[in-house]
């Protein structure tokens, strides 16, 4: 999200800026707020409650409602939820064997339910409120169980939309990130272990990292550019996936048994919904319905398409045939890579990013995986980890101030940004890897991570849920 970078700036030199800016800004805001509110008969009430806003917590500001921005953010939230259910659920379950289809889809669905509740209870507060003296590393408790998220308050990262909308929009990001990890350990993790692991991972990995980059933490302060979550979401999920794949080990029969997807049409539906939903993910990260959202959407579309074509081409050359799964994976790779850049590059930049991402992720999913020999079953690391890293670096290359004054990349005379981006990747990646590993170990030696060989052979649908596709 670009906005927070601005806030950072504000925070850094409050002493000089706020005194002069905020008063008349607030006047304008309140004036408008009042104007709009008086138009909503049933809510005139709130106008009176204005004074309350005096006692706002550090992360919040008075709501200066812009109905257009709010409409777009409500929509974006729906679109990002659509990415996980049914988008990701279908993308992943379309790649597994018949006996695991339901269980794979159920992972996305169950994680959606789990994370929603945990996010409401503590996740949002830890990621997006003010952590006082620990603010650089973690947020605070001002919004535990979302208390005090009244009708006239907004988050400082989006003053023109209600905080409830900002919170729910962020919730959908917190949902899809753990869900993405599942691709790495498909077909072999116990459902109970998955639930425990994901709960811990949200608390110990996602919430802090989201805070570091977006919530006012130290990484954002360092100037890392991550428009919509290339690092927080995709790199993060990809690394966690790799660790999971290594700790859980390969699927039984991996390498000799035929593990071809049962019904790739499900994967095509899923990839399509991911693509469409990504408009909410990237364009929604402008936190407004404005030109930045527009360019972010255009870039998203172009990079995704370019990556689909480049993966298709590379595969056509090396495998003699352009597989459907290849097109889908390419499109997703492009979406991943453009995520951090969507609001910082221009269309030609996004075209390059897409073309590169398609090739790089092909190498990751097809070549690297077999070379190194881990079983990243549905390429959570191959596409999201590698694509996320590539996107972060390429943002440092193609960011141009002609699109967004907040981001200058190498082509804009600021090669140093590439270093900053790499720092961001390393810090996030290392922290994520270490903590993920620790959580996995804890689960492994308590309730256990993996199903038995027999259960794996019978399939997760029947053994974990007592159901199957007939």
């Amino acid at each position, binding site marked *: 999200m670009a906005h927070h970078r601005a806030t950072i700036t504000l925070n850094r030199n409050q002493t000089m800026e706020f005194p002069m800016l905020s008063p008349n800004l607030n006047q304008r805001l309140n004036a408008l707020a009042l104007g709009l509110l008086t138009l909503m008969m049933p809510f005139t009430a709130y106008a009176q409650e204005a004074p309350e806003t005096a006692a706002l917590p550090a992360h919040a500001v008075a709501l200066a409602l812009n109905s257009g921005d709010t409409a777009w953010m409500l929509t974006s939230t729906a679109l990002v939820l659509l990415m996980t259910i049914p988008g990701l659920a279908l993308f992943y379950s379309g790649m597994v064997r018949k006996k695991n289809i339901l269980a794979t889809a159920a992972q996305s669905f169950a994680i959606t339910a789990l994370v929603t509740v945990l996010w409401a209870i503590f996740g949002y507060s830890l990621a997006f409120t003010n952590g006082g003296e620990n603010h650089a590393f973690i947020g605070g408790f001002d919004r535990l169980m979302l208390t005090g998220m009244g009708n006239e308050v907004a988050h400082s990262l989006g003053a023109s939309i209600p905080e409830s909308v900002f919170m729910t929009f962020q919730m959908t990001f917190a949902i899809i990130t753990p869900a993405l990890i599942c691709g790495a350990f498909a077909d072999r993790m116990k459902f109970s272990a998955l639930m425990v692991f994901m709960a811990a991972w949200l608390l110990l990995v996602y919430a802090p990292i989201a805070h570091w980059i977006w919530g006012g933490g130290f990484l954002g302060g360092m100037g890392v550019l991550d428009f919509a979550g290339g690092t927080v979401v995709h790199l993060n999920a990809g690394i966690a996936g790799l660790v999971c794949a290594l700790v859980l080990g390969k699927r039984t029969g991996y390498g000799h048994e*035929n*593990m*071809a*997807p049962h019904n790739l049409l499900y994967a095509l539906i899923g990839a399509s919904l991911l693509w469409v939903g990504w408009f909410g993910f990237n364009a929604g990260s402008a936190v407004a319905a404005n030109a930045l959202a527009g360019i972010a959407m255009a870039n998203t579309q172009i990079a995704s398409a370019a990556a689909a074509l480049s993966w298709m081409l590379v*595969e056509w050359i*090396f*495998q003699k*045939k352009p*597989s459907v*799964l290849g097109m889908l994976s390419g499109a997703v790779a492009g979406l991943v890579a453009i995520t951090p850049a969507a609001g910082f590059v221009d269309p030609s930049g996004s075209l390059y990013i897409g073309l590169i991402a398609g090739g790089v992720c092909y190498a990751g*999913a*097809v*070549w690297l*995986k*077999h070379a190194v020999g881990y079983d990243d079953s549905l*390429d959570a690391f191959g596409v999201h980890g590698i694509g996320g890293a590539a996107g972060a670096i390429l943002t440092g290359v193609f960011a141009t101030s002609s699109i967004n004054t907040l981001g200058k990349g190498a082509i804009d005379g600021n090669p140093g940004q590439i270093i900053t981006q790499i720092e961001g990747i390393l810090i996030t990646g290392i922290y994520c890897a270490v903590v993920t590993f620790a959580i996995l170990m804890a689960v492994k030696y308590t309730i256990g991570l993996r199903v038995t060989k027999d259960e794996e052979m019978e399939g997760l649908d029947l053994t974990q849920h007592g159901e199957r596709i007939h």
Partner: protein
Amino acid sequence: MKFITAIIKPFKLDEVREALTALGIEGLTVTEVKGFGRQKGHREIYRGAEYAVNFVPKIKIELAVRSDMADAAIQAITTHAKTGQIGDGKIFVVPLEHVMRIRTGETGNEAL
């Protein structure tokens, strides 16, 4: 009576069935099967790993016939299932001891 099992190429089913009906054969049972033989299966690609699928989709026709009809039936199947290319299939014949039509309890030739 004879129990004839024929393995043929799927797209030949209708043609063969019509030929048998023409002979006055009123019933048969069809099963979708996978065949392994000289004809090699297709190759599937998945994440760069190309693997051979050894089995070819085939159709199995089972029919019980009067002994004196067996040769005619075999003849009909052969002529109409034949493409001349590898994978055309096989015909197997075993002696049939006893037949019964469930609906009527008829046995032997009347049951066919």
